[in-house]
């Protein structure tokens, strides 16, 4: 039934060339969701760390890049064990990359951020930018990854589902599915587990949590590990979407995801996902308008500024809670 409906629509409306058709709208929505899901996943990592530490980890987007490169180097070996383009092999690549990046994230926190824990927030923020640049430029060295894009292997055979003229790529389904699953997972960890309770306690008041016997250092390490694992998954999904990976690949989506996290209300998990999806949709629709596609970032970010003018704490953020 939907198939029939769509094909009638397209035959009726395909003649005018600038008029948006139903197909166009549905296809752009799907494209936007696929892109937004990745932004959402990256934004989740930003928001987790912010929620606990009240600080933006700018190196997050570089951990994403490291996740993609981990996948790039381990995928051929995994392939030998599990076979070419097997589901199990892909899951293994995701898990291994997440573990590697979780360790890296915890290492970064231990070496760069922990020594500055009691310094002004600005010091830590500048350090985060420094760590980010350090990773980017180390990775660009020819003996590390090199600056030229590398072809990322296809981990899973791609299928496309045709609904009339609308095409849904299995990759888009994968991206949305993984994001929903991880959002649910994060929410469960934060709200329903012991360690999650501890995370919320640290977020609320570090000193008080310490006095109550919460191992603050451990909790912060765990948060960084979790955030970095999310970044690794996002990096792999981004590499599957655009299979030319390079050391600066994280910068653009990282910046957008940061904005998405702010838009959704920083520190708020569903807010990050909402912000990411919204940004993905805005960008895709703006990019698909002839004559305006050049200004797609300007349009997307312009709308974000408008939203933030009306709701300064973000869509789901509550200013009062932040102040407690």
């Amino acid at each position, binding site marked *: 039934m939907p198939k029939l409906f769509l094909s009638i629509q397209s035959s009726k409306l395909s003649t005018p060339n600038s008029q948006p058709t139903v197909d*166009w709208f549905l296809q752009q929505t799907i494209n936007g969701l696929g892109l937004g899901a990745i932004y959402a996943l990256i934004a989740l990592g930003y928001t987790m760390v912010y929620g606990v530490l009240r600080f933006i980890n700018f190196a997050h987007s570089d951990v994403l890049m490291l996740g993609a490169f981990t996948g790039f180097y381990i995928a051929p070996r995994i392939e030998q064990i599990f076979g070419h383009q097997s589901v199990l092999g892909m899951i293994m690549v995701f898990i291994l990359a997440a573990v590697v990046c979780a360790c890296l994230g915890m290492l970064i926190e231990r070496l760069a951020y922990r020594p500055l824990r009691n310094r002004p927030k600005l010091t830590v923020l500048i350090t985060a930018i420094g760590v980010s640049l350090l990773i980017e430029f180390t990775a660009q060295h020819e003996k590390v990854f090199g600056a030229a894009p590398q072809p990322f292997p296809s981990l899973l055979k791609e299928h496309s589902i045709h609904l009339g003229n609308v095409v849904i790529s299995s990759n888009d389904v994968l991206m949305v599915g993984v994001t929903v699953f991880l959002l649910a997972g994060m929410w469960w960890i934060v709200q329903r587990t012991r360690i999650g309770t501890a995370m919320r306690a640290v977020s609320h008041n570090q000193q008080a949590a310490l006095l109550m016997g919460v191992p603050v250092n451990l909790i912060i390490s765990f948060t960084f590990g979790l955030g970095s694992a999310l970044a690794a998954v996002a990096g792999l999904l981004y590499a599957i979407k655009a299979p030319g990976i390079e050391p600066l690949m994280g910068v653009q989506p990282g910046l957008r995801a940061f904005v998405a996290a702010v838009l959704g209300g920083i520190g708020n998990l569903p807010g990050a996902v909402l912000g990411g999806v919204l940004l993905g949709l805005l960008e895709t629709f703006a990019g698909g308008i002839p004559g305006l596609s050049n200004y797609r970032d300007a349009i997307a970010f312009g709308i974000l500024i408008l939203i933030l003018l009306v709701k300064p704490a973000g869509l789901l953020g509550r200013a009062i809670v932040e102040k407690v």
Partner: protein
Amino acid sequence: MKPGTFICSSAASLAGLIALGLSGCKSGGGDTIKVGEFASLTGKEATFGTSSHEGTLLAIEELNAAGGVLGKPLELLTEDDQTKAGEPANAVNKLISKDGVVAILGEVASSRSLEAAPICQLNKIPMISPASTNPTVTQEGDYIFRVCFTDTFQGAALANFASTVLKAKKVAVLTDVKSDYSKGLAKSFKQKFSANGGQIGSELDFNGGDKDFKGQLTAIKSDAPDAIFLPGYYNDVALICIQAKQLGMNIPIFGGDGWESESLLTIGKDAMENHYFSTHCSSDQGTPEMTKFVAAYKKRFNGKTPDAMAVLGYDSAMVLADAMKRAGSTAPAKLRDAIAATQDYSGASGTFSLNADRDAVKALVFIQIKDGKFTYNSTVNP
């Protein structure tokens, strides 16, 4: 330190610098002839710079093996501009003022050649670009040359190709707004294609380095053109073709010489099948000069097949050496006149002459991607 010592020491270092500068200039007329080259050896468009550099290097080595030019060996000084805006200016300034080169070879990308050209013109040092096709590059001044055709010719050839070979009535255009090359080529294509009676469908833009193009591609899809003209560089082109395939678009996508790179195939894989691009030459075009070059290149670079950028890198150095021989001097003004007088030169890429605009007038070839390979399709003469 007392203020006096500071002035003394800085004066001393200044004197040292001047001495260095002088000796730099002198060595230009010393035991070697210094030729400067700037190329994107690393970064986003690394295969362009690597290829053109290897071609240039091979030419210099061959020339030196044959006894050099004017009785002196050539010395190639190469600077990597890392595919970054701003770096070509640094590289060329260094090559001219510190190293004292007699001529500059480079770059492939028009945006970066456009950055270096005014500096070469100001210093009156001849610059030969191997493969920058944007018309404005040589308009920077009478010291700027190229050994390739311009986009006015390439755009027109592509428009004719779309009308006659692809039999396209309506073509969508997707331009990289960050690149002078892309904008220039899109402009000349649109002019000629409209003049041919074709219709330009939706025109969309992207920023080189973007990773998601589905928004633009969906808009193009709903406009239902017969083909997509994509004047971009290979990294973006590969991702765009992958995403077009994901959206179930089966129409031909075609573009210019910015597509030519092995990375197009390693990243794009089967999404590149049956798409077309125009370029400067093909390693299997069968001319004796090309056959000789391909053999020498494969021998020198471990069996690697040269692409068009390598061939043009070779030709740019050979044209320079030819001009030095004819001028009998490496004095910039004489060298400039000799390069400008290049006529019916038989290069590896083909036979060409430099016209009054200092652009090479030469044939163009079309390549189709078939079974994961660049396959020679046809030649268009100027």
